[in-house]
C-alpha cells in the first residue's frame, strides 16, 4: 500500500513535469522496417541452438558474464565482506 502510493505519486509528478511535451512519433514505415530487420536477425538466432546445446548456452552465458567482469565482482564481494565486522576481513 505504502510503496504503491509512493510510486503512484512519482508517476503523477512525472506526468505533471513532462505533460506539456507532445512530440511526433517515429514514421511508421521506418519502425516497421526496423522491426522487419530485427525479426530477420532474431528469428534466425534460434539456429544457434542447433550448433551449441541450449542447456550449455543457458549455463555458460551467465558464467561468462561473471568471469569477464570478475574484477568488479571480486571487489564488490570484498567490499560487502568488509562491512561485516565479526568476519575480520581487511
Amino acid at each position, binding site marked *: 500500500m505504502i510503496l504503491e502510493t509512493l510510486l503512484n505519486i512519482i508517476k503523477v509528478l512525472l506526468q505533471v513535469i513532462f505533460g506539456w511535451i507532445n512530440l511526433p512519433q517515429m514514421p511508421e514505415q521506418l519502425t516497421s522496417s526496423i522491426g522487419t530487420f530485427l525479426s530477420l536477425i532474431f528469428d534466425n538466432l534460434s539456429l*544457434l541452438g542447433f550448433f551449441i546445446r541450449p542447456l550449455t548456452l543457458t549455463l555458460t552465458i551467465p558464467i561468462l558474464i561473471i568471469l569477464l567482469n570478475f574484477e568488479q565482482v571480486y571487489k564488490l564481494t570484498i567490499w560487502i565482506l568488509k562491512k561485516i565486522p565479526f568476519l575480520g576481513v581487511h
Partner: protein
Amino acid sequence: MSFKKHFIILLFIIFLLFGFMPFSYAETDTDYGIMPISVLDDYVLNVDGSYTFTYTHHGQNKIYKGEVTIPANFFDDSSSVQRWALFIGDDGKPYIVQCSSSYPTLYYFFATYNTITGFGVNASGSTNYAKIYEYGVNGKDEFYSHGDLYDDGYILYPSGFLYSRNLNVNFVTGSFSSNSKPSDVYNGIKNGSFKTYYIYDVMFRGTSPYLLDISASSLSIALGTAYEGYTYEDDTGNGLSVTNTSVDEFLLDISDSGALSHSFGYDGLKKYMKHKDGVGQILEIPFDYLTSLDNSLSFTSGHQYIVNFTSRCINSISISNFSYKYYDEGNFKTSFLYGSTGGGTGGQTGGNTTTPDDPFGGFTNSVVDSNDRVSNSIKEQTGAIQNQTSKIEEQTNAIEEQTEVNKNIFERIGDILNFLNPFSENFFVYKLIELLVEAIKSLFIPSDDFFSTYFDELKSWFSDRLGFLFYPFELILDILNRILSINFNEPIFSIPDINEPFTNSHLISQTSFNLNSLLDNSIFSTIHSIYLVCVDAFIVFKLVNLAREKYEEVTTK
C-alpha cells in the same frame, strides 16, 4: 572519433534502414479506386500438367494476393476449345481464368446486370457456348458456360450461362434483368449456384430433377421442342414431344398454398390432376399423351408454384416477370408417384390412363376412424402421466431444498465450535494473527501485477508524449524481449517475403526450415550428438582457462 566518421556511420545507418523499408511496403493497402482489377502475376506449368496461377486483386480499398492451381484436364491446346476455370479465391471473391496453355488470362468475375437485357438462348445457340469449368468449390465435374463475354479490359460481362453436372446437358440460360441487383448476382455466383438470379427468360433441359420456386404474376409454360440428353429430337415441331422409345414418365408436381385455380389449355389434362392433402395438386402426364399436346399450361397469377421435372425430356419453359430460384436435385422428393396402372415409373401407354380409385371403399374410412380414437385415448393418458410426473418432481425439489438448509445450519455450528477450540487449526487467535500478517504484507508489498501494470502505463504514456525521443528505449526493450523469447530448442531458419522495392514485384516468398528435421537421419543424428559433446568440452575447457586467468589477474594485483 572525428565528426566525419560519425557522419559516415549515421549515413550508413540511414541507408540500411531505408533499404529494408520495401518489406513493409508489401503489406501496405493501396487504394486503386472504385474499379476492381485482377492482374495475373505469373503462371507456372507444374510437372503433372496443371497450372499454378498467382494473381493480385486490386479491390476498392486494398490489394489481395492469391494463388490457385488448376488441374491439367482443364487445359486444351486445341484452339477450338476455350475453357475457363471459375474459382472462388481465398478472399471469397470469384475469379475466372481462361485456361489456355499458351496465354492464360485472369478475370475478376464481376457480373453486371443492366448492360445486357433481353438476352435469350435457343437450342441452336447453345453449341456456341464456351465452357467455364468450376473448380475449387465442390470439386465436382460441374461447369458453367457463358454466352458472350464482354470484356472492357478488367471486368467480365457474361450474358448467359450454361450449367452442367455429371456430364449431362442440364442447362440454365438466362440474362440479367434490368431491375436485378448486382449484389444478388454476385452472391449467386459466389455460392456456386444460380439461386438468387433474376432471370426473365429461362430454358431447362436435362436428366436431373429441377425444382423451381416461382413467384410469378403470370406464368406460362410453353411446350416446345423436346430434347433427350444431348440428342435433339423433334417429332411434332411444336408440341411437348418426347421420344416414343423412352420408358420414363413426365411428372409435374404443381402445389399451391393458396386457392387452387389452375386452368389448362387442354381440358384433357385436368383428369390427371389430384389433390394432395388439400394443399397441392399432382399432375401426371403419360408420355404418349404428351406427344399430342399442342397447347400451353397457364396458371393463376399471384400464386406460388413448385414444378418438379423428373423426366429426361424436359422441354423449354418461358416465364415472364418473375423472381426465380433454382434448386439442385435432391431437394424435391417424388414420393407421390401414383396413378400409374402400368406399374412403378414405367411407361404408360395411350391417353387412356386414369387415376386409380380407392379399392377398399368405406372400409378405409372405418379403419381411419378407429385409429383416430385409439390415438386420442393414448394422448389423454400420456398427458395425465406427465402431470403426475411433474408433481413428483416438484415435491422432490422441495425436499432437496430443505435438506440443504439443515446441512448448512449444522456446518455453521461446527465452524463456531472450531473457532473457540484452542487446539483447532481454526482457533480464532490464529486467524487473528493471520489477518494481521496479511494486513502488514499488503501495506508494504504491492500486488503481483502492480509493477507490470505500472511500468506498462508509464511506458505507453512516455511513448505518447515523447514520441520519437522515446523510440530508442522502446527499441532496447523490444530487443531484450526478443532475446528472452528466442527458442533455441527449435532451430528454424526463416526468410520473410521479399519484394522488389520499386515495382513491388515478388522476389522471394516467405519460407522456413527447421534444422531439427535433419536429425531424422540416424547417422547424422549420431554425428550431431558427438559434435555437441565436443563443443561442450571445448566451452568448458575455455571457461576454466578464462577463470584461471582472471583469478591470477585479480590475486596478483
